[in-house]
């Protein structure tokens, strides 16, 4: 398993895909934070929390990163030599999940560090001043990093389940931006348990009926375990084209 994990980490480092997604995630979180503070109103605790809790928005990028990584194996045929070298598909899929989880974690740490490095001084200098306590900042930082890691792993799960890369990406986008938005219109309490709802709350989001931070982490983890478990089982049973 260690060898397979190292193999996946080499794969991540030797194409531009991970770098591109990582850079995009950092820039998006930075832009979201700066714009929220400089253009929006940050005169109460909830708005200041929202301004720094952009990792929920960035999660979709990391979700796509995971999808591209997993479904890309089938698109480029790289899954064939991978499985010829290591025929245990369960181990191969788990190694990829762990590698992408680690990559998501790393991107989350960098993105949150950059966003905090610029956002916190901006809040300190705002008219209201910083209302967020150190505990709030820790919660947002830890939640944002975990959210990034979970999103990348969930993406791997979706990409392993739906091997066609284009269909997998479209499915994720429709799920995030259409189905869960419709669900939110029908029942915001139910939508809070959805993928975007739980990841957003884990990252520190404060929307209507947002789950408490700890519960959001559990629900997000449950989504990751369910999708990744389904991916592992499905991958083991299907033929490789």
């Amino acid at each position, binding site marked *: 398993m260690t*060898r*397979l994990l*190292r*193999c996946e980490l*080499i*794969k991540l480092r*030797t*194409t*531009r*895909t991970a770098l591109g997604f990582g850079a995009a995630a950092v820039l998006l979180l930075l832009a979201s934070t700066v714009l929220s503070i400089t253009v929006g109103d940050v005169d109460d605790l909830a708005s200041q929390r929202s301004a720094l809790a952009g990792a929920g928005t960035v999660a979709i990028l990391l979700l796509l990163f995971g999808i591209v990584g997993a479904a*890309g194996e089938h698109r*480029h*045929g*790289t*899954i*064939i*030599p*991978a*499985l*010829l*070298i*290591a*025929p*245990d598909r369960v181990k191969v899929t788990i190694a990829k999940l762990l590698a992408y989880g680690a990559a998501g974690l790393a991107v989350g740490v960098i993105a949150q560090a950059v966003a905090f490095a610029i956002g916190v001084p901006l809040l300190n200098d705002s008219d209201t001043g910083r209302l967020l306590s150190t505990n709030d900042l820790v919660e947002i930082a830890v939640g944002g990093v975990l959210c990034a890691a979970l999103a990348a792993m969930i993406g791997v799960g979706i990409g392993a389940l739906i091997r066609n890369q284009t269909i997998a990406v479209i499915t994720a986008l429709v799920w995030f931006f259409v189905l869960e938005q419709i669900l939110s219109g029908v029942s915001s309490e139910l939508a809070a348990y959805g993928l975007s709802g739980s990841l957003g709350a884990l990252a520190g989001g404060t929307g209507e009926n947002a789950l408490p931070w700890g519960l959001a982490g559990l629900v997000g983890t449950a989504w990751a375990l369910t999708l990744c478990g389904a991916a592992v089982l499905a991958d083991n049973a299907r*033929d*490789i*084209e």
Partner: protein
Amino acid sequence: MTGADEANVGGVARMPNRAIAGGDAATIEVDGLTKRFGDVQAVADLSFRVRGGAVTGFLGPNGAGKTTTLRMVLGLARPTAGHALIEGVPYRRLEQPARVVGASLERSGAHPGRSARNHLRQLATATGLPSSRVEEALAAVDLTGAADRRVGGYSLGMRQRLALAVALLGDPAILVLDEPANGLDPQGIRWLRDFLRTMAAEGRTVLVSSHVLAEVAQTVDDVVVISRGRLVHQGPIQELINRTSGDAELRVRSPRGEALAAELRRAGGSVRVDGEGSLLVTGVSPEIVGEVACSAALPLYELSERSASLEDVFLQLTGPPSHPDVAGP
């Protein structure tokens, strides 16, 4: 794993001077292998055995089920029935498959944005091979100079060679190569032929698929021919070569063709006339034709032998192209 293979594992860096015992040490056994895709029967009750140390051509027209069979042999597809064993165990149960079997399927399996060296490096890492093996495999397929270029910029021939480098990575005793000559130019085909000869000379067991018999005829020891997912012939290549000489036909031209035809029929030959008025004669030797013509004082303008080609024999074995309802993906 056999003693010979254990020695291979210990000596993976010896590939350029590799020597493997032949005989039956490393074999592939396919028994009753069947694969259905819905209503489509891609492979039907296919059984054959690949001798250790021999180069075996796995032949059949496009859509005959060759790739589907190899995918099942390599554990990438589940058989509907039957089984395929490598050294007595299914591929997916091999402890260190890359050190036992090297395989190259139709697609190169390399990410276009990754260099060949990194492609091999990650695979070597996955199976615990030293990085020196990456350089040896690159050298074996003449790709060292282009190893740091992205695979997306490679020609088809270079991609095929990279796929062969992947197959050689673990210095395996068995190679399974699916249509390695597809898309190669004449130089590439010459290179591949030399490559296969080198692999054979090193004593490896090679199973190489192709839809063109002539492509592999000079290299293989045995052939397994399938058509519409079923076995139609298995045996030494020499058997097929013997068939071509057995079916020799003589082309005879004479200004008095009708008279000569009558004399040849009397001598026991079978004669028909082609569109140009030449006689096509079977059942008698060229010497008999010459003697008959001489004794009857009939002039001869041409006497030549036309053997059935290997492709003729191949087409006789495999019949017309597959119908869509039996062709596999």
